[in-house]
């Protein structure tokens, strides 16, 4: 099972997870007496220094502490939205692929419509209500708009797997539809489900950042997106404190990299033919 991509991906992800979970503790340790996340804890826009590695933001919060505390909410939103998008996508993709005929055409048109439809305007309209939503409602919303990508991938795969002779052979052996779906088709889909979960998670985090960037994200949540959004809107760049934007963007990209590497690794591991020997025809 030793696969370079998989190992490097998992190690990167676990590193990020550790930072995310222990973030709040680290920030407490760094700032023993005062709560760095309280409004007005420090002077506004302190330039980066040893004490404030990323300087302070408009609200006088220490940017580095804020960063440490916002990785976990971002990942949570991403994961929840990714899971929701993948579940919806698998259900839609599966029903379209497996049942086929008119159900398939109807679902396919619906999926393409949602995919082609510029989602952001809709987000923008909902954005105003997003301001005081909690984490779960936001993830639900991000998830609900993430499923077309997964649906397309799963549907194509189910269509091709459904035609394979081993499905007929299993039908002739008396397996009912339920068993065919979960025991025969699902294993073949796992790499694709994994891929869409990874892309869904990362996609949701990026979208959340995009919303924050144009000032429409959830105000009461401290996420990486929020940091980027507030930083940008309050002109942190012109004050020279780039770190407050580059750091969260960097972490988002690292998250993507880790999930992408894991997925590439799983792809090779899952495909039994690649595991053993070269098939010379």
């Amino acid at each position, binding site marked *: 099972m030793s696969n370079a991509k998989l190992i490097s991906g998992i190690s990167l992800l676990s590193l990020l997870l550790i930072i995310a979970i222990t973030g709040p503790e680290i920030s407490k340790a760094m700032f023993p007496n005062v709560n760095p996340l309280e409004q007005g804890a420090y002077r506004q826009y302190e330039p980066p220094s040893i004490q404030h590695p990323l300087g302070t933001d408009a609200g006088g919060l220490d940017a580095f502490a804020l960063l440490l505390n916002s990785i976990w909410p971002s990942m949570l939103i991403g994961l929840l939205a990714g899971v929701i998008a993948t579940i919806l996508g698998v259900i839609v993709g599966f029903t379209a692929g497996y049942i086929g005929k008119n159900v398939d055409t109807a679902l396919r048109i619906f999926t393409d419509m949602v995919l082609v439809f510029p989602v952001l305007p809709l987000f923008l309209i909902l954005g105003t209500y997003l301001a005081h939503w909690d984490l779960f409602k936001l993830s639900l919303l991000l998830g609900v708009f993430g499923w077309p990508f997964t649906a397309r991938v799963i549907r194509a795969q189910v269509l091709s797997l459904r035609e394979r002779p*081993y499905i*007929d*052979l*299993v039908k002739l*052996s008396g*397996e009912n539809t339920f068993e065919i779906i979960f025991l025969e088709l699902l*294993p073949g889909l796992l790499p694709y489900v994994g891929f869409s979960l990874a892309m869904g998670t990362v996609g949701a985090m990026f979208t959340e950042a995009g919303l924050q960037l144009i000032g429409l994200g959830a105000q009461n949540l401290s996420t990486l997106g929020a940091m980027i959004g507030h930083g940008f809107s309050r002109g942190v760049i012109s004050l020279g404190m780039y770190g407050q934007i580059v750091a969260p963007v960097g972490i988002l990209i690292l998250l993507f990299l880790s999930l992408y590497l894991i997925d590439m690794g799983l792809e090779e591991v899952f495909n*039994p*033919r690649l595991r053993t020997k070269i*098939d010379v025809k």
Partner: protein
Amino acid sequence: MSDFLVVQNITQVFGTRKPTFAVDDVSFRIPERASIVNLVGESGSGKSTIARIILGLSKPKSGDVYYKGTSIFTRNAEWQRQFRCEVQAVFQDPYSAYNPFYKIERILNISIRKFKLVNNPSEAKARIEESLRAVDLRPDEILGKYPHQLSGGQRQRVMLARVHLIRPRLIIADEPVSMVDAGMRATVLNILMEFQAQYNISSLFITHDLSTARYLGGEIIILYQGRIVERGETIQVTSKPLHPYAQLLISSIPIPDPDKRWRETLQFAPEVKSSQSQNRERCLYAERCPHVMEVCWKERPPLQTSPGKESSWHVACHLYSGNLKGSSLES
């Protein structure tokens, strides 16, 4: 009904814009006594479509298939389970007949479990090993392996072992030897014949290769563009075919013997793009038939006994319909 599988006027059409008749009003029976029926035709002649219909995997546009008098598409679950026990299949492509995710013996275990072939689980392993040996595979070489770790020949014989486990009354073998090495071909055919002799399991053997059909003997049904053109005893039909297409087909088999080379060189019949090509009520072979007559373009030749031949020998060609007694083609 004495015959236990009856295919009645099945027709299957694919495509809506330009409908293509994959199967066009085909009927035949498979007798009660263990026998081998060869269903022969080129790719696109509809033989695999017929196989899928008989197995109940796809519904025909019209016509029906009866098993022991009941239509195989009835909803009754118990009857379907019984039908599955008695009619099984062997597929063409050994490389895609197994789910790559599971070990090879899983399909055998499913069959045992679903058809309740053993009364206690411990017997299952013994039964599987017995069936593997019946198709001369060594259990220790096969069990525990993934499908891609076995050769094409081994995988094909595992499918036959599955049939040996279930002991059906009829196997639908859809080109089981076409993707297997030449050396292995005879082994698979011998197994099918053994099943017929020892366990009186009938086989509907589907192939495009006439020499394998002739080796299996039994009866033969020759298809052309979804229609039966000739049917009868394999040995008789393949030695002196009546239908012009069957004659050309059988004379074109590349016999593996340098002394028996093709006598005359064939000329490419000009691809006649006649206006008639859309009209279905005619002999479909009319465009390329050297003996084509007026009637061939107008009426569809019925499948009937040709004068002076046994009752089971049928041919669908106007040369043999009643009005032309003893035509030159008899020689």
